[in-house]
């Protein structure tokens, strides 16, 4: 097994384990922390795929900003462990069964799809994940979506402020 | 819907979005001994409940068991930042009550000591405001020069903080030349330091923003709350006991009463600073007047009242009459006249009143201190309501609350 495979499996196991912990943690703060670990694992995958820019942006945006916001909100409203509402066991069980069957269904689907059989991906080579080509593409072909997204973001910010001010 | 049934909220809890913070009694901002149970909404203070009494020492009860001269050490511990004012306020009360007239030189010496202690009091208050806004260094700069004041005290009475300075009828000893030299040193060095201190804070925008518009109170409310001293003057009322009811020959001096306009923390800071400048000018005038006494006049340091002022030590050793007076005074065997008196002085942070009732016994029948801190700490809630938590801290220190005085 090559070093890349080792890393891949380690990171995958890490990601899935942490994701499960997000689910089962009773305390939302713990959930947030586990989710941050998931994001780190995913960033690790990005690095494996040599998508450096996305890896670092993933950490800055998700781990550094979004999750801080989550943490902030949880601390602000200070939800206690015991006051966290719990669904009934049956509902939970149903949820797990539904998620599991969803997974099974999709896996089965993937197994049957012929187009992707035997196709490999390029792991650490290739330059498209680096900042230079990405920047070129972003500011040439995709400049209009880029600007639109910035407007979207601005309006979201304004919206958040307005909602918060109420 | 039944699945919601377990989410029952306690009554009123939906409206309650505040947190209860318990500030004190060992919180750094409370300087030891107050407790504020604050309701805060985020950083905003919604309400607060002040608890005091953490160093209640029963001064008033204690004073009922002590002859007059032994009460002086107790008054030391009222507002310990300016003990000499308390000492002298007590002595002035006794002298008024016992109808003792003081020589002018004693008055002027007292004025010097009192104004020195006013400076040290305001100095601590203002530098603590600085500390509570986060600037520690200015505090240390001025503390160095407070040491000069302490040296003068030490030269006069032998102690630094709880001075027990002066006696009923005058001082326990004449000022030495060293004391005057030290006073001159103080007068030379101090203005520069004060200027530096002002430069460090007064026009610094961070400091101005921290103090302006916080902890403000209107003149009418301040009076209703019983404010006196710098805190009332900051609100715009130029009430000063030194001017209104002069004691210790304050009428002989030319000084101004600084007043503010809004009564906020910045005004209080400015008023205290301005008062320090006035105090320096008063000390200079008094020192000049003292130097005009020549010859035997320059040796006067007490009134000639053998009933209340201890005779000279040499006389005690040699003369019978002096020994008898000595014994009578120390044993507290002199009956006080019957009656009552209220007498006030301008203490470090307001009108410090002494209400003395005598039933003709040897100790006061009842002695009540009008402690300015105690009276205006009540207004704290009104001062900080709606402000930020940080404002509350600054307001607390800029009110110059001295726990020893507050709790008595």
């Amino acid at each position, binding site marked *: 097994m090559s070093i890349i495979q080792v890393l891949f499996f380690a990171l995958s196991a890490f990601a899935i384990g942490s994701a499960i912990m997000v689910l089962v943690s009773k305390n939302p703060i713990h959930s947030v922390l586990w989710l941050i670990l998931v994001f780190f694992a995913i960033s690790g995958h990005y690095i494996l795929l040599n998508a450096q820019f996305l890896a670092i942006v993933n950490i800055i945006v998700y781990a550094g900003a979004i999750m801080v916001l989550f943490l902030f909100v949880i601390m602000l409203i200070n939800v206690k462990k015991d006051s966290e509402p719990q669904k009934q066991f049956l509902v939970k069980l149903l949820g797990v069964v539904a998620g599991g069957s969803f997974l099974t269904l999709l896996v089965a689907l993937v197994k049957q799809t012929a187009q992707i059989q035997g196709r490999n991906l390029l792991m650490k080579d290739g330059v498209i994940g680096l900042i230079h080509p990405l920047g070129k593409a972003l500011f040439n072909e995709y400049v209009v979506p880029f600007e639109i997204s910035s407007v979207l973001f601005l309006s979201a910010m304004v919206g958040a402020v307005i909602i918060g001010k109420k | 819907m039944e699945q919601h049934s377990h989410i029952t909220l306690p009554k009123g809890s939906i409206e309650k979005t505040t947190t209860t913070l318990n500030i004190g009694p060992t919180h750094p901002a409370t300087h030891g001994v107050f407790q504020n149970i604050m309701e805060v909404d985020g950083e905003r203070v919604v309400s607060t409940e002040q608890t005091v009494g953490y160093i209640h020492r029963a001064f008033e009860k204690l004073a009922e068991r002590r002859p007059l001269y032994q009460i002086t050490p107790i008054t030391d511990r009222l507002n310990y930042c300016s003990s000499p004012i308390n000492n002298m306020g007590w002595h002035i009360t006794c002298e008024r009550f016992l109808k003792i007239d003081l020589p002018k030189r004693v008055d002027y010496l007292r004025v010097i000591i009192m104004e020195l202690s006013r400076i040290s009091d305001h100095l601590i208050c203002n530098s603590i405001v600085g500390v509570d806004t986060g600037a520690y260094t200015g505090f240390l700069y001025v503390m160095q020069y407070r040491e000069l004041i302490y040296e003068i005290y030490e030269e006069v009475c032998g102690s630094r903080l709880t001075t027990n300075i002066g006696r009923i009828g005058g001082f326990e000893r004449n000022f030495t030349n060293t004391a005057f030299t030290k006073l001159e040193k103080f007068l030379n060095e101090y203005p520069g330091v004060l200027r530096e201190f002002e430069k460090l804070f007064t026009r610094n*925008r961070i400091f101005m923003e921290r103090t302006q518009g916080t902890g403000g109170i209107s003149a009418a409310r301040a009076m209703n709350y019983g404010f006196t001293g710098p805190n009332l003057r900051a609100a715009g009322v130029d009430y000063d006991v030194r001017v209104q009811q002069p004691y210790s020959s304050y009428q002989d001096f030319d000084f101004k009463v*600084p007043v503010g306009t809004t009564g906020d923390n910045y005004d209080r800071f400015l008023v205290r600073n301005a008062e320090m400048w006035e105090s320096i000018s008063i000390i200079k005038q008094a020192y000049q007047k003292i130097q005009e006494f020549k010859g035997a006049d320059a040796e006067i340091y007490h009134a000639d009242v053998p009933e209340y002022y201890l005779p000279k030590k040499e006389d005690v050793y040699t003369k019978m009459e002096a020994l008898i007076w000595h014994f009578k005074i120390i044993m507290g065997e002199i009956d006080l006249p019957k009656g009552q008196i209220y007498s006030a002085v301008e203490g470090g942070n307001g009108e410090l009143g002494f209400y003395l009732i005598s039933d003709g016994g040897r100790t006061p029948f009842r002695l009540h201190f009008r402690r300015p801190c105690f009276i205006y700490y009540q207004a704290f809630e009104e001062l900080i309501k709606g402000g930020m938590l940080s404002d509350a801290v600054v307001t607390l220190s800029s009110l110059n609350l001295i726990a020893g005085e507050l709790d008595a």
Partner: protein
Amino acid sequence: MQTLTNKALAVQRQPMTFWERLYLINIIKGMMITFSHMFKKQPTIRYPEQKREFSPVFRGLHVLNRDEEGRERCTACGLCAVACPAEAITMEAAERMEGEENIYREEKYAAKYEINMLRCIFCGLCEEACPKDAIYLSETFAPANYTRKGFIYDKNDLLIPNPLTNAADYAKAKGVQA
């Protein structure tokens, strides 16, 4: 509110000028002040090595005085104990016996004389109260100790050295440098 006196003086409270609004100018001014203090002489008294001269009237530890012949001056009249607001002084009087004239000056003397330094507030009233030139506060400050019993100063701790038998120490206690 009308003014009560003609002495009122409004404090200088101008609005911020443009330059003050910029924060930086005044911050730099303040930093210059603190910087200039780096080169100032430090007033620090490095205590255990350097000692500060106390004033001659400093109110520190008590001493019991003797006269020139080395006799104790205290006559146990109790005035100091009465004058003490902290009630820190305890004494027991005794009659002087034959043959003790060279130890005690008066016919009565303090057989036991204790001051509880933990109670004492060093107000100096005992010194003033003494009609016999016997008790003084000294320029030595009271040292700290580990136990309460280390603060009960009895006569041995308080008396100054005997000028006849221990002249050198006596001179030291008087502050006369030998």
